[in-house]
């Protein structure tokens, strides 16, 4: 029998607000002394009251809207109850029944370039937990990260191939960076991926009655490898007649396989409970304003580059990798226009030669270099004439010699032009221009 994978993805992204989600402690915890960014709220001390960060809500809405979601009329926070030392309150403030944004989508591309729309179930706001280190039989806890704003983005189980998952995750990362809501660094844990993987007989419409959650995977590459491994493992199990069940598995990079972390019997029972200490959110009226403020996102920018500049889709995708690179590319186009450089040439040059564009200087140099390289193939008389004029002005002796009849003095002048243009100019054309100029 032929099987097809059914994959859903949950992405957590930590927002880069100045203060935490529900208290005024600094959210900039990375590399700081442990437990120096805490207060009664984020330590879960009795009687402390959470106070919602406006900027975090705005950034959550920006993410939702960038992913084509609707903002709901009414949103509430809830307590997700579980006991683990990373959460001093005994619950995480999250959203379950009343997420801020719902029903979005994002276009992804698989390894063969086929584009599909992935439905996004929800984008909700929650808080991060403390950081645990397991050392020598004890666990050390740092609550600096406790209550740092976290946004969770959950897709429908619409992925059918690991390459789509990778593209989706990369696109999300790009969008976070374009929006400026997070540095979305995977290694630092700003962005975390969890995949739900199951398989079903090809053509079957119903979802499988189990799913395997792949957790704690901190790179796009490992995520792809883990999903590929898991699909293979599940198909083999089904072919052997085994029954698959709900479980959580991790990825072992050394062994390149997944391992059981938690089975169904131990599955969490979170008993979500409306958070009575936080006012509800009615932010639908902000939707339009926030939508208008959102910068041009990579997908749309790439399409515009193709339409406006006539560059290839592949080049466009490379050039919109970051907002900064895309900006410098457009600057290069402007500068290049004065030198008769076409956008396609600039795009090819930057992409093929892997030219670094990270400052105005580099943009200028790239354009100059490219224009220099082009003189030989460029039919730019005006420019060559200008250089010829410079050479004539700078070499009065050769000019005098030539006009006295020493014809090989012309060779010296031609050489001067060749040097100035790094030899990228048609010699015959230079000779013709020189001769006509020197006759006047």
């Amino acid at each position: 029998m032929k099987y097809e994978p059914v994959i859903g993805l949950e992405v957590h992204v930590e927002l880069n607000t100045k203060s935490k989600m529900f208290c005024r402690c600094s959210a900039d915890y990375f590399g700081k002394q442990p437990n120096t960014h805490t207060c009664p709220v984020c330590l879960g001390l009795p009687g402390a009251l959470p106070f919602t960060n406006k900027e975090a809500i705005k950034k959550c809405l920006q993410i939702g809207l960038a992913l084509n979601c609707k903002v709901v009329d009414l949103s509430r926070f809830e307590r997700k109850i579980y006991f683990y030392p990373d959460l001093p309150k005994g619950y995480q403030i999250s959203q379950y029944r009343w997420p801020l944004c719902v029903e979005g989508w994002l276009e992804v591309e698989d390894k063969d370039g086929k584009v599909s729309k992935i439905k996004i179930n929800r984008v909700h706001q929650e808080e991060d937990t403390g950081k645990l280190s397991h050392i020598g039989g004890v666990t050390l806890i740092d609550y600096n990260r406790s209550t740092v704003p976290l946004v969770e983005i959950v897709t429908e189980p619409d992925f059918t191939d690991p390459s789509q998952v990778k593209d989706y995750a990369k696109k999300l990362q790009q969008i976070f960076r374009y929006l400026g809501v997070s540095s979305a660094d995977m290694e630092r844990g700003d962005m975390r991926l969890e995949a739900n993987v199951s398989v079903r007989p090809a053509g079957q419409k119903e979802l499988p009655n189990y799913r395997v959650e792949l957790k704690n995977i901190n790179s796009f590459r490992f995520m792809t490898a883990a999903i590929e491994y898991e699909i293979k493992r599940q198909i083999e199990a089904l072919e052997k007649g085994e029954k698959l069940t709900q479980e959580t598995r991790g990825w072992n990079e050394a062994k390149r396989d997944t391992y059981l972390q938690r089975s169904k019997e131990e599955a969490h029972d979170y008993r979500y409970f409306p958070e009575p200490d936080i006012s509800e959110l009615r932010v639908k009226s902000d939707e339009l304003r926030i939508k208008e403020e959102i910068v041009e996102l990579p997908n749309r920018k790439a399409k515009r580059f193709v339409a406006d500049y006539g560059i290839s889709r592949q080049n466009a995708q490379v050039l919109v990798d970051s907002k900064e690179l895309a900006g410098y590319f457009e600057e290069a186009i402007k500068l290049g226009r004065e030198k008769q450089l076409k956008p396609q040439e600039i795009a090819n040059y930057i992409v093929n030669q892997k030219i670094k564009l990270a400052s105005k200087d580099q943009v200028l140099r790239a354009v100059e270099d490219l224009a220099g390289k082009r003189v030989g193939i460029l039919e730019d008389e005006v420019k060559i004439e200008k250089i010829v004029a410079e050479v004539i002005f700078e070499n009065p002796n050769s000019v005098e010699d030539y006009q006295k009849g020493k014809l090989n003095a012309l060779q010296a002048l031609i050489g001067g032009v060749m040097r100035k243009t790094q030899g990228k100019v048609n010699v015959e054309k230079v000779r013709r221009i020189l001769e006509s100029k020197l006759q006047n």
Partner: protein
Amino acid sequence: MKLTADQVKKVAKLANLPLSDEEIEKYSGQLSKILDYIDQLNSADTSEVEPTFNVTGLSNVLREDKVGESLPQEEALQNASQVKDGFFVTKGVFEE
């Protein structure tokens, strides 16, 4: 409504409480009584009543994203039974 020993065990596990068999027996009786007591609420007709999630009735109470003061490390750690190098210490828990 009588809670079974298994239900009590599950609740205890979710609340991270280690209970002896004796305690399970004792609490199943007590918890059952509490549930019966709470159950009286079911006699009220609430079909026309919206659930109350928040008694203030306020919405959009938000604060500006400004950093305020945090507790000094010693103060944050002062109630911990065990500390090490600025960390809270708890008996080992492992994700795996």
